[in-house]
Every structure is written in C-alpha cells, then in structure tokens.
C-alpha cells in the first residue's frame, strides 16, 4: 500500500512481491472479532494445546488499527453488520478477512430476518472456513492456507491483472445449483 504498488511490472516487482509476501506471512496480527461459539474455538486455537504461537499469531489485537487479519468468528446480525464494517475500515492495509464457521460464511442455520446471510455481503472475504463450529485444527489449517495466499500475493500491476482474471473466472463459473453429478 505504498511505494511497492507503484513499481512497474517485471523482475523488480516480482522480487519485491516475494520479499513482501514473506515478511507479511510471518508477521500476521489477528483482530478479535468473536461473535458466537466459534470464538471459543478461536480462543482455544490461541491457547497452549493448539498453540497458534507456532505461527507467530498468538496475540489477538483488541484494536483494529494494529491488526491485519480479521477472523469473523460467529453469526453477524443485521445490527452488528455496520459495526463489523467499521472495524474492517479501521484496519490498515494490507488486510485479510477469514469467515470462520458456516454462519459467517453463508448464514448457516440462521436463515432468517435477523442474521446477515454471509459476511461477504459486508466485507470482502479471503477464506471461508466451514464447520459448526470448526475445530481449532480446521482454523489453523485455514490460517495456514491464508498464509499461503499472503505469501504469494501479487502487487501493483500484477495484482490488477490477477483481479481481472479472477473476476472473469467467477463470472463464467457454473452456478452451484446447475452442477450435476456427484455431490462432492
């Protein structure tokens, strides 16, 4: 979100991408956004048994201004949605969002008037983690996958081209209700 975004595409940008990704991957600061039972599993992940400290992420920041990963742990009510968006806006770039559990991903069992049907209605989500609630192992697996994303994140002109490609792929993807065959 600084000079590195302005670099011309080529070998210089590729090198900077590699360095920046390596540094960002190894220094992630999760923001606490525990909303429901998923938060208990998130806390368990930070505790000694599952030991998120192995990945340098055991300190959950209570202030969004010091965090770059928001783990939305639980169902988001319609009233909480603007609060969540404000917390997201207060986080400095670059930032990532992990929708933890089915409620944050898609509304889950709360298919009703009171709950936002997936937190991607409010903020862009980088990783969806299913489960009700997901076990700490699953959360750690999702975090490792998001680490991988961060590690290989493109910058500047490369990133713009990647976003266009991803959007094209999403536009031409088959809607899930039209899929045929095995249910997996």
């Amino acid at each position, binding site marked *: 979100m600084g000079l590195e975004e302005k670099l011309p595409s080529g070998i210089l940008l590729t090198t900077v991408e590699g360095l920046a990704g390596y540094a960002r991957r190894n220094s992630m600061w999760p923001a606490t956004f525990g909303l429901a039972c998923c938060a208990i599993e998130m806390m368990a992940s930070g505790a000694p048994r599952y030991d998120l400290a192995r990945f340098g992420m055991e300190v959950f920041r209570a202030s969004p201004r010091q965090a770059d990963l928001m783990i939305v742990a639980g169902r988001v009510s*319609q*009233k909480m949605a603007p609060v969540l968006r404000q917390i997201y806006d207060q986080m400095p770039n670059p930032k990532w969002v992990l929708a933890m559990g089915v409620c944050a991903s*898609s*509304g889950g069992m709360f*298919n*009703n*008037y*009171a709950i936002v*049907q997936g937190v991607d209605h409010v903020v862009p989500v980088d990783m969806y983690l299913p489960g009700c609630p997901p076990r700490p192992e699953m959360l750690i697996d999702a975090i490792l996958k998001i680490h991988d994303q961060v590690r290989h994140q493109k910058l500047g002109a490369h990133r713009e081209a990647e976003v266009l490609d991803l959007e094209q792929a999403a536009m031409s993807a088959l*809607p*899930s*209700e*039209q*899929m*045929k*065959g095995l*249910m997996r």
Partner: protein
Amino acid sequence: MSENPEVVPAGTETLEVLSTGRGAFGIDGTPDVSGYGGLVRRTIATPAATRPYGGWYDEALDTLAEELGDHFGPAVQKVVIAHDQLTLEVAREHLLEVMRTLRDHPGLRFEMCMGASGVHWPQDLNRELHVHYPMLSMTHNRRLSVETTCPDADPHLPSIVGIYPGNNWHERETFDFFGIVFDGHPGLTRIEMPDDWAGHPQRKDYPLGGIPVEYKGATVPPPDNRREYK
C-alpha cells in the same frame, strides 16, 4: 369432525381457548395421506383458581383486596394458579395502582419486578398482546406474576418504569419485539433491532425471512416458504 358442536356434559366449565392449530406442518392444500391433516391442537388458558388458594396466596390477595378497596374487582380480573405459581390478570387501567400496592404494602413488599415479557396470541380477540411481569418479594421470599393485556388495535399499556426503574430496558425490548407502546416510558426506542427496522419481529404474523439456499444441483427455499410452522 372438529367443526361439529361437541357434546358437553352439564356443569362442565367453559374453557378459554387461546389458540387453535390445525394439521401438521407442510401439508396445507395437498391431499393428506398421513392423517395428520385432521389434527387439532388447542392451547387452553388455565382456568381461574378458586378459594382457598393455599399457602400464602389467600393472605396476600386479602391484603391486596383490602388495600385496593372498590378497585379490586375491576383491577384483578382473574386469579390463576398454575404449577404452584400465582398469576394475577390485571386490567391495564389499574396496572399502576396494583403494581404500586404490590411494591409498597408491608404485607406484600414485592420489591423487584424481574422484567416484562410479551406474548402474542393472535386468536385471543381484543386482547391479542399480553405482557407478563414476574415479581419477587425479597422480604417474604415470595414470587408471583402479573399479567396484563391490550388489543392489537390499541397497543398501549402504562409504563411501570416510574415504580420499577429497572424495567426501563425490558419495556423497550417488549416494545421493540411486539410493538406494545408503554405510555409514560422515559425513552421508548428500539433496543435489540436497528433503529430503522420495520415491524416487530416477535409477533406471530411477522415473516421469518431468509433466502433460498443453493446447493450443488438443488435450491432449498427459506424455512417459512418450505413449511408452515404452527
């Protein structure tokens, strides 16, 4: 079968039906082969209790009657004892007077009102909205509950925040979810739902909401379009 007038033996007490549900969910308007389409379920209000009520109930009601004087008859419309718990059904015009007496009289001393719970009975005509106040006397270690009603067309009740200040947020919640307006409340605004929310979600006629859920090769409609909950 249920449409026919039933044969009632002489001397049987007439029961007050709060609601009637018919059939099982999900089979309205289709040929019913399960037999559950003929199911009729009634929710019956507990009949009024008769004296002697037992325990401290007689003494407490005597005290209340003595204190309210002529107002006792119109104020306390029904005395119900269900599951060993005393409930007074109070007319809303006399609610404040009854509450103040319950709090202040040395023989009653119900110092705490534990909340205001709304109930919506759409079939209980002209008294569709009920509010239930659980009361606790710390002095005597006694509990009773006070119930009052208002019609859907005129959803107004007097606020008891002047007597029990702790009921402030409880009444806001009941207003939020049921649309009951508590006259005299110091700041009656929504408390649970967002300020610009339309409707009162805990009413029986409020739609459940929800969106169709896509799966691989299928779409499942939201619950209230899928089946009817009764």
